């Protein structure tokens, strides 16, 4: 009987300790995630000019009706989805390729790992400013156009042509983000037993077949995780268009988050911006759940 009581006491202590450990995270999540989300949903049913919080007017779902008729919203959604669809496989493939390269043991491999990871350590704002110069349409200023003209080709208006602006941002973003995913893939690669490769090698499997039948299945969990986080990051694209193109030209790089910012802060339509944010939240949640379902069903 006494033993049972002692166990119960320990269990209770463990439970209290668990609550103590969890409390800071829960409090922070509530303060900085749940409460803002509730506010966002609340403000989205008001006409609310950012400078006049005292003149808020309840308008029901008017903001949502306006939103679904707003061609800028659909354009921003299209741009966001396009960016996500292209950047996720491109960046993940690049990261996996880099991880395979630097997983080999050779002299100076640590230098390459550091080099590939270093864009992650630099602020996206700084990188965006630097790449704006690299992409500059004037061959006397922009490195890429300088190379193109030296090869006898015409310069390209990378950031000022609606056909190339988003692709230019995608390329830069993949370059910047691949280093982080590379490190995750690297950790995944180290978890694959070496003897599987040795056995395959003895059986005469080529390097490509080893990659196809050992590496890829071995990285399945890592790939799912990397795709999921890259997709969520991609949906939140803001800094690059804000710094490099201001959403232009012709709205070709205006993303949902950029549109929320411009409506809420530049134009002061805070209620309307909140309705975009609420819809954006639902879209991200749905995409994440769909992604999870797809990856689970493949197991």
């Amino acid at each position, binding site marked *: 009987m006494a033993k049972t009581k002692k166990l119960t006491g320990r269990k209770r202590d463990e439970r209290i300790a668990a609550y103590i450990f969890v409390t800071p995270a829960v409090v922070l999540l509530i303060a900085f995630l749940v*409460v803002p989300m*509730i506010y966002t949903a*609340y403000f989205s049913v008001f*006409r609310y*000019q*950012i*400078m*006049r*919080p*005292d003149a808020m007017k309840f308008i029901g779902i008017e903001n949502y009706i306006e939103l679904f008729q707003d061609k800028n919203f659909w354009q921003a959604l299209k741009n966001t989805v396009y960016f996500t669809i292209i950047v996720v496989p491109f960046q993940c493939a690049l990261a996996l390729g880099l991880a395979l390269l630097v997983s080999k043991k050779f002299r100076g491999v640590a230098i390459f790992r550091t080099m590939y990871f270093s864009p992650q350590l630099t602020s996206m704002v700084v990188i965006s400013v630097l790449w*704006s*110069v690299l992409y*500059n*349409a*004037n061959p*006397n*200023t922009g490195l890429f156009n300088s190379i193109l003209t030296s090869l006898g080709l015409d310069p390209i*208006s990378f*950031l*000022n*042509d*609606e056909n190339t602006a988003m692709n230019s941002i995608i390329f830069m973003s993949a370059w910047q983000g691949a280093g982080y995913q590379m490190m995750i893939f690297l950790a995944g690669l180290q978890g694959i037993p070496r003897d599987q490769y040795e056995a395959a090698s003895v059986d005469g499997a080529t390097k490509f077949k080893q990659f196809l039948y050992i590496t890829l299945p071995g990285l399945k969990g890592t790939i799912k995780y990397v795709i999921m986080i890259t997709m969520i990051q991609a949906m939140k694209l803001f800094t690059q268009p804000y710094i490099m193109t*201001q*959403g*232009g*030209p*012709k*709205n070709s790089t205006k993303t949902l988050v950029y549109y929320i910012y*411009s409506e809420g*802060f*530049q*134009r*002061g*339509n*805070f209620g309307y911006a909140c309705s975009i944010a609420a819809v954006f939240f639902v879209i991200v949640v749905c995409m994440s759940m769909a992604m999870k379902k797809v990856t689970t069903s493949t197991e």
Partner: protein
Amino acid sequence: MKKAISMAMALTVALTTAATTVPVMADDPVELTIWSPTDTAAIEAWWEEKIAEWNEANPDIQVSREAIDRSDSYAYDNKIATAVTSNDLPDIFYVDGPQVSYYAANGITVPLDDYFSEEDLSDFVDSAVAQNTYDGSLYAIGATESSVAFYYNKDYLTECGVDVADLDSRTVDNPITWSEFAEIAEKCTTDDYVGAHIIMDHGEGLPYALEPMYLSAGKDYISEDGTTSDGYVNSEEAVTTTAYLADMIAKGWANVEPITDEFLNGACATMLGGSWEIATLTENADFEWGVTYYPVNDDTKEAVSPCGDWAAAISKNCENVDAAGQFLQWLMNTENVATYAAAIAKPATRISAYDEEVMADYQEGNLALIKEQLENTAVPRPRTPSYAVFSSAYAEAMTNIFSDAASTGEVDNDYIQSELDVVSDTFTDDYETYYAE
């Protein structure tokens, strides 16, 4: 759910009030905080010196300043907007001229009429008073004005066969025309140079620097009473004016993506540049340069130039408006205006400031030209509470138009019309939603 939200909001308000309502002892000094954009070392030093001087002389009103990054877009305005939503505005904040109406109409700033009499204001240039007045009351007061003029690289223009002596001899009654501007730009465009620099940034710089072109063509962006944009920013005159600018981009006479300090770095032959460029060029240019009056429309010959600069306003959150008013009276005295204007290399708003020794450079030469423009051709930007919305919509439209011209090498008037229609619709939508009676 509604009750829970109300309780959460009430709790937030209660906590905020509890945190901010600190009992003030009778002999505690009033503390005032100022926000103004981060500036050059000379201006930062000026602020430090002046605030120390005030604090020493006025132990009962202690002032501190926070420099806020302005960036080249709307970063500073975003900071103000965020502070409004969090009820966290400083006592005094600097605001760009055309935004004065926006803040005043929304009750973010308070009138300053009690602190600046008509006699005081008669010493300020008309454009500065007009820009800072909304609905008959003065809402901001600034020490400096600004202007934009036509700069040219004399060495390079001479090489290209442009009559530099003719440019040097122009007067306020006989400035160069748009077609002369375009002619020079065409003549001076080579593989290494572009003929002109006409874009300043992706923010307020665009409507600020280009407005005189529209005015000279006969139509402002917005009606004089600040209520209507339809038939103004999207008028035939506006389309023609915009097409002229886009044509310079399409023909490669001006860069759509200019490098920083393009003119100073010898990458362009001429530029429409701010009055502050005179100080930069005097100090750093390694070529001979000149400056003349803002170009005029070929048909109307109407001379107009930009003006307006940042000015100080007292926020609705200021708990001691009288103390803030007293501080602004002192901050805007003749000596302070003159030294500030000299440090920031901009023309002063106070006429008496030009008699001070530090402003002696404005008596002749390039700076006198700026003063002359300010006195004779300056027109403030539209005074309307929807200016912030107009400004960002116009900047976005112009960026689209210029990008289109650069990528296609052609000017599409229908496209320009459609973009300017969007600007007008955006303005109208905002004005009618929030301000129309």
